């Protein structure tokens, strides 16, 4: 076997990848470049094609069209066992008839490297499970099995490590702990990680770069902060965190600001933060960037003000409260207010105004589903 192992991460490039299954297209003309050593997250709802993409990179599915390059080398037609790529499977897929140690040594043995058991022990030590080496996988807890699966993949020092929702089966606390450990291990070994997940917090927390995938294509890609601060499509705005979205025709657009008419109210955003500045567009704002007031704030060109409206729902989530405010003629607006003891005392049914800074608005390139794109 002539597998090209470099013991460090390599960059991955997908060129025009397309995958058709009978009756539907799972991945449509996907281009992607992941630099070596990066922690990259592919984020999307179930059925968006992210797992299919991962399986094509692993070699478990072959693309209908397109090329997969690893470290500049075309691996599109290589069998899975010939690729220097390892996967941490969603269900872990540990071999039930082998001990934990033999599971981890499996890849090393297949490559006929020296001292498979020593290397496997070291990998188990890295995930702090060396004391369970002789157990069978089914004798371990979910979190322990997850670590074994990670050790079994990492011990091979693959050019690229694929993670297929590996934390999905763990409870919240364990998941957060494993996220931190996984990130630490990635920094330590310097491998390229491609993490597939539908958990947006997980993706933002761990990844250097997040690609949001929807219906077989990538909607937007970038650093988590940038993606959250300036979503470019309605899908990203709603899938990555929450958003209040207002649709209206542009009434005024200059170098500084762009405003729309939203049911008679003027909503303004910065022109440099708008994807479109003419016709019918959608402007959004994050709920934690909005504030409410018991008295009408003074009109200010730097503020968007809506109201008055009635508080219809208050949800306590610990660090913050989530308020639903129903403003006649405007609709529902979500406001997050931190529980720092200073927030206004409001009750269900209270009349309030909502405001946010113009610079916190973001203009989207498309309209949310259901909103007709007519002039």
């Amino acid at each position, binding site marked *: 076997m002539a597998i090209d192992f470099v013991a460090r991460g390599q960059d991955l490039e997908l060129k025009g990848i397309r995958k058709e299954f009978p009756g539907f297209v799972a991945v449509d003309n996907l281009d992607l470049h992941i630099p070596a050593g990066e922690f990259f997250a592919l984020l999307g709802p179930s059925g968006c094609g992210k797992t299919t993409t991962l399986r094509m990179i692993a070699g478990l599915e072959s693309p209908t069209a397109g090329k997969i390059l690893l470290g500049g080398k075309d691996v599109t037609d290589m*069998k*899975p066992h010939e690729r220097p790529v390892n996967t941490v499977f*969603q269900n872990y897929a540990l071999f039930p008839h082998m001990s934990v140690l033999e599971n981890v040594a499996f890849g090393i043995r297949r490559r006929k490297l020296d001292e498979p058991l020593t290397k496997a022990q070291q990998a188990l030590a890295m995930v702090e499970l060396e004391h369970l080496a002789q157990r069978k996988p*089914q004798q371990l807890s*979910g979190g322990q099995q997850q670590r074994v699966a990670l050790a079994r993949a990492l011990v091979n020092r693959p050019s690229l490590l694929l993670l297929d929702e590996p934390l999905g089966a763990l409870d919240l606390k364990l998941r957060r702990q494993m996220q931190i450990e996984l990130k630490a291990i990635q920094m330590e070994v310097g491998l390229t990680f491609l993490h597939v997940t539908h958990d947006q917090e997980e993706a933002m927390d761990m990844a250097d770069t997040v690609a949001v995938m929807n219906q077989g294509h990538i909607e937007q890609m970038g650093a988590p902060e940038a993606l959250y601060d300036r979503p470019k499509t309605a899908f990203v705005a709603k899938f990555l965190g929450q958003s209040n979205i207002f649709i209206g025709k542009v009434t005024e657009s200059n170098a500084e600001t762009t405003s729309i008419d939203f049911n008679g109210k003027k909503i303004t955003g910065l022109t440099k933060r708008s994807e479109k500045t003419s016709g019918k567009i959608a402007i959004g704002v994050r709920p934690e960037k909005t504030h409410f007031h018991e008295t009408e704030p003074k009109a200010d060109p730097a503020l968007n003000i809506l109201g008055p409206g009635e508080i219809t729902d208050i949800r306590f989530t610990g660090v913050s409260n989530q308020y639903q405010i129903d403003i006649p003629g405007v609709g529902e607006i979500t406001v997050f207010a931190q529980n720092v003891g200073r927030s206004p005392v409001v009750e269900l049914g209270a009349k309030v105004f909502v405001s946010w800074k113009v610079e916190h608005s973001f203009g989207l390139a498309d309209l949310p589903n259901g909103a007709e794109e007519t002039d």
Partner: protein
Amino acid sequence: MAFVAFGSQAPAQEQKPTKTGRVALILLLPGLFYLALFFITPLISLIITSLKQASASGVIGRYDYGFELGNYAYAVSQYAPQIFRSFSFALLATIIALAISYPIAYFIGVKARDKPLLQGILLTLVVAPFFISFLLRTFAWKQIFSNDSFIVNLLKNIGVFGADSYIIGTNFAVVFGLVYNFIPFMTLPIYANLDRLDIRLLEAGSDLYASPAKTFQKVTLPLSLPGVISGTLLTFIPISGDYVVASRDFLGGPDTAMIGNVVEANFLRIQDYPTASALSVMLMATIVLLVSAYVKRSGTEDLL
């Protein structure tokens, strides 16, 4: 949750006898009674018969109670070739049946998994022979292999066979008949096992640099071992005692007799009941010994 996926293999929790335990015992009684009547009683009767001695009256087929261990020595000295042949045939037929059945079971259980219609048709084909009597099917093979049959004539015409060659009555015919008759017993347990094989484990194997052949050797085969063991037991045990296929009325000849044929002859024709019983007892004891050694070696004691 994923980590209970293999929960079925976890050791069962020990249960203390409780009131429900007593109920279970009562429910077991009919079964125990049945076993005592139809298994233990004949077994004891068989052992007693195997130790009987020739009647003082001298009437053929009449025997007196005794403790004649010489019956066993006589049976072994008289029928050693048939005993040896029985186990050789059983071993050979089991190996051939396994070689034929495993690929069939793999195809039906793994490859045809996402094609339920094909899977159903193939399974029906495996079971189809059961719809016709065992005797009739074996008799059909006697016709097919008979001396003036198409096959024998063809072999003679193309020069493979000499003018006085034949198939019926040869070791080949008997082993062929045994394999043919017992293939479903081998295929079904292996299929039942492979049908539950987690394909994701095979993907994990290939992801960890194992070629398809290596993945089969290291993952599929070890995981399907319980099915293989059940299949080989269900094949080997009945073949060892089979008396139909090797009989001269079917595919056998003068030199193919197995223990079953000898037992049948001693019981029904010669009326030498003690020798027939001694042979039966020895056949049973040998099978128990062989099977327990085999199962112990393959590390699947929980099958017994």
